[in-house]
């Protein structure tokens, strides 16, 4: 479904991604973990070309972009394969919740307005915001905004949804509502790649977990393998800080 080959990215002399290979199967939920500055968000943003990789190849659902010399239409087509949920929600500020969800359907996919409206309302109801259709983002809480963001991504029926730390800028109280929505759509078999700091969530929802550090994949495996018996020293070190509740090392 998704295949990344030797993705490299440099800012000037600083190499952020040092050759990432990654394959994600259809319907799989993959969590990417790693310390701040490890390149995990950059990697995710490379997948829809919000960052331009310096080298490598990205394939989503049979559509391949060679990052050496991509054309504008390549990038545009690649972006249409995926949808993204942002850390800062990035809802269109001048549009209501409903308009936010409809926008991509109407403008990009050219779905007739009435139909788009119907589908958008369904999706907003699904994320529990059926009563906030006409609210502007500034009138919504962070958790509500993020749920609109998820509905907006779902609306496009993308091949994959990319989550960029979807709960990192939320009050602890509001994290739960967003995670439960993500959990719900994970069960529906939508392919998802999630960059997150929520360890227990990753453990619960992901089929595969990838640990990145310093621009490289250090370790990958099932949540059970990675969380309970990590092989690499660096992974152990990183996970140490996230010992599950009730386990104290004195």
């Amino acid at each position, binding site marked *: 479904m998704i295949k990344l080959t030797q993705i490299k990215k440099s800012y000037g002399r600083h190499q952020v991604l040092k050759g990432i290979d990654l394959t994600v199967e259809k319907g799989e939920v993959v969590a990417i973990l790693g310390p701040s500055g490890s390149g995990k968000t950059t990697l995710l943003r490379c997948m*829809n*070309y*919000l960052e331009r990789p310096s080298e490598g190849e990205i394939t989503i659902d049979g559509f391949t972009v060679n990052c050496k010399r991509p054309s504008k239409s390549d990038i*545009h087509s690649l*972006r*249409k394969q*995926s*949808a*993204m949920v*942002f850390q*800062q929600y*990035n*809802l*269109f*500020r*001048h*549009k209501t919740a409903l308009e936010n969800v409809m*926008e*991509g359907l109407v*403008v*990009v*996919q050219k779905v007739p307005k009435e139909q788009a409206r119907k589908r958008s309302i369904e999706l907003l109801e699904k994320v529990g915001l059926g009563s*906030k259709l006409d*609210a*502007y*983002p*500034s*009138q*919504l809480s962070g958790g509500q905004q993020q749920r609109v963001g998820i509905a*907006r*991504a779902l609306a*496009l029926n993308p091949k994959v949804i*990319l989550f960029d730390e979807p709960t990192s800028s939320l009050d602890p109280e509001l994290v739960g509502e967003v995670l439960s929505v993500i959990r719900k759509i994970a069960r529906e078999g939508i392919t998802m790649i999630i960059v997150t700091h929520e360890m227990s969530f990753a453990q619960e929802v992901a089929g595969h977990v990838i640990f990145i550090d310093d621009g490289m994949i250090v370790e990958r495996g099932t949540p059970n393998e990675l969380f309970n018996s990590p092989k690499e020293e660096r992974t152990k070190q990183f996970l140490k800080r996230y010992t599950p509740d009730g386990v104290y090392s004195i």
Partner: protein
Amino acid sequence: MNIDLPFIWESLVELLTAIPTTLAITAVSMLCGLAIGTVVALIRMYKVPVLHSVAASYVTFIRGTPMLTHLLLIYFGLPLIVDALSAQFGWPFRSVNIPMITFAYISFSITAGAYLSEVVRSGLQAVDKGQIEAAYSIGMTTRQAISRIVFPQAFAILLPSLSNSTISMLHGSTLVFTVSVVDINAKSQIIASSNWKFFEAYIAAAAIYWGLTILIERLTAIVEKRINIYNRGGVT
């Protein structure tokens, strides 16, 4: 002191006929200026090859020279060019057929374009980068993202500056008397000198300009209120 109060009123009434000229010059210059300014701002933001440096020179030259100079340059330069072209291609058109007000339209649009390009640029840059990223992420093209997402928000941001520029243009349009266009100011000069009542005529002109300025401010406030609904927050 000897002021002829009724004459102020008489002048005022007479000056009303010149309002359309002043408003036309202001409106045309601002609209064309906004179009030019937007194009220039986009060229500069996206660093379009070649055009980028042309745009930069245009902005620094125009902002570096007085509006009156632009008007005079256009007034004396444009006919030369038009007549040369007509001679070259055998067109029947001559520069004497150009209505005077056209010089004002052209020159002030060029002036406004340079200033407004900076206004538009600041507005575009003030829109959060996440907005265009979100637009890209749902598959929009750059053109769609700019016209549907960035511009509407930028416009709300730059509205106060735009209102300011409109007021400046309204007042700056008084320069047209140098090319014999009769706007409010020129008309007041005519009234003043033909009646030998300068102070009265100019008071009347001032009153009209003030009134028009208040009108622009009010209109801005109305538009601002409508356009900024989404920024209000907290009312669901």
